[in-house]
């Protein structure tokens, strides 16, 4: 439970810093730690797939505004 909430907080903190794509990946990685039976490889694959699809759907497709990252612009 704390892991899930912590991952949400991490997303909120990371969003202006890392940008949308990486924040989503971070969220997924941290969130997956809450499920005890995931292998690291699976976590990375799921994170990548989700981040890419979300980026396509939300940023490119629906053009939702997200803050531009402090690191990547």
């Amino acid at each position, binding site marked *: *439970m704390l892991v*899930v*909430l912590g*991952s*949400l*907080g991490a*997303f*909120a*903190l990371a*969003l*202006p810093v890392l940008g949308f794509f990486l924040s*989503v990946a971070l*969220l*997924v990685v941290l*969130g*997956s730690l*809450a*499920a*005890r*039976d*995931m292998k690291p490889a*699976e976590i990375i694959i*799921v*994170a990548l797939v*989700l981040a890419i699809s*979300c980026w396509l759907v*939300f940023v490119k497709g*629906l*053009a*939702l*505004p*997200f*803050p531009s990252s402090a690191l990547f612009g």
Partner: protein
Amino acid sequence: MDLIANLALGFETALSLQNLLYAFTGCLLGTLIGVLPGIGPVATIAMLLPTTYALPPVSALIMLAGIYYGAQYGGSTTSILVNLPGESSSVVTCLDGYQMARKGKAGLALAVAALGSFFAGTVGTLLVAAFAPLMTELSLSFGQAEYFSLMVLGLVSAVVLASGSLVKAIAMIITGLLFGLIGVDVNSGTTRFSLGFAEVADGIGFVVVAMGMFGIAEIITNLARGGGEREVFVKSVTGLFPRWTELRAAAPAVLRGSALGSVLGVLPGGGPTIAAFAAYSLEKKVAKHPEEFGQGAIQGVAAPESANNAASQTAFIPLLTLGIPPNATMALMIGAMTIHNIQPGPQVMTSNPSLFWGLVASMWIGNLMLVILNLPMIGLWVKLLTIPYKYMFPAILVFCVIGVFSLNNATFDIYLMMGFGLLGYIVVLLGCEPAPLLLGFILGPMMEEICAALCCCRAATGRPSSPARSPAACSSSRRACWSSSCCRASGRGARRRSRKRDRRSAGRVASRARGEVSAVAGRAALEKQAFAFIRWRGAAVAQLVEQRIRNAWGRGFESFRGTTAQMSGRSTRAKTAGRRSDRVGCRVRRLRNQILPSPSSAEGSCRPLRNAWRPRSGS
């Protein structure tokens, strides 16, 4: 006939390619989330609300509505095949549906569920189309007191119909009301409970609360419980087209379920879940072989499924006609309408007929699409069920977060959602339901605004805004009104009056006498209250009102009532009320003469003693 013309307009709107596409998307999404346990229509609609901003309002509502009733269809799939309810309204279907699947009759169960849902959806749509204009006319005569009482009824029903302990449901509603208080006060402009955060000045967004309590909390609960082994009957999904005998056995159950569901969907606090439970119990009561229930009776699948679908259709009636959400999902729909600058209420039908009738028509089209989606394409959904939860919940988490963030572009909302997720988890651990909290959260501010408006009217005219018709509404609003300064100004006289009203005895004459005495006494308090109102409202208005009162007092009571009623905008009622008050005084005197006959009073002499009336100082 008007209905045909309106339906024609509706179908014309709904059959446009764009709307068909959105209806299909909505139904697809709805079935998807209905099939997937752990995410429901509330969370999905909340997530997709901000994305519908770019769409035209009709398309947005069509899609969101499709999600809602699509979820009812999809929920039955998981309940029958996996014994895991995809939706809270499909819990009852688990009982008999899973047993039927174990006996190899999964296909029959699925088919009966889908066809029964389609029939119920058609019935529900017809009811919406037929009754909506009638209800709109009825609702136009609703005053603010009636709206308030309806909201109170909604909260009370949410308590009564909630499964689980009554105290916990009441606690949830009150917690929701308290959360609704956060933000700027309607009357005084002070910020309440904001703890110094400027972001909650407008109150907490309901999407944040909904996502936190339903989405995040659900994820945490599922993770804490740990995913178990689920027995999925994938292979035995054959025989999807039922035989005529089986259909005949299920038909009465479908009819009864549709009827019950249609009624329960309209009631505030009702909804598909209640309808499903009620239909199941009804079937059990009227069945010839009640012992079959729980072992795989087809009526046990047909009735709840029809009921929950009918309820999800008729839940749109109070939303579209009165603007009052009967359950949490409809409240989100109100949010969707507000985003598109449509004011929910009785005028939606007249100001936006294409929206209204297009939505109604697309409901039926959506039901048709859903039958096609559910029956032949069942294999697709079944495969979806085999995805382990550990892959699904990060996706749900991401969607929740993105949905909440994109509302206000504020990371503060994400922190709030975290808080509500924690709260939701605690709530579930304590055995309470999160749905009443959301209802209380949404209805609380609405009720407070109406209450404040009622109090202002009361201060202006010195009498309740709709006296004889809804005394219960007045007394309940009086009791509920604790935060308005208006109440403080006019409190004493009104409290006395409400106490008088509360002590109504059984006898109608005695009660009417007391009410009339209080109305007469109210006249005495009128001037006092008028000046209290003046003090509250400010000097400029005060001078105007004071002048009017002095003029009116000279001219007579009647015109004063007319003036103040014009100020509060209800002249007709006030004029009749003015005449009624004279009759009131007359009737009171007649009663008094009956109780204590005095030699000077003759039978039937009842001249209005207007000139003898003098406002007393301490009434």
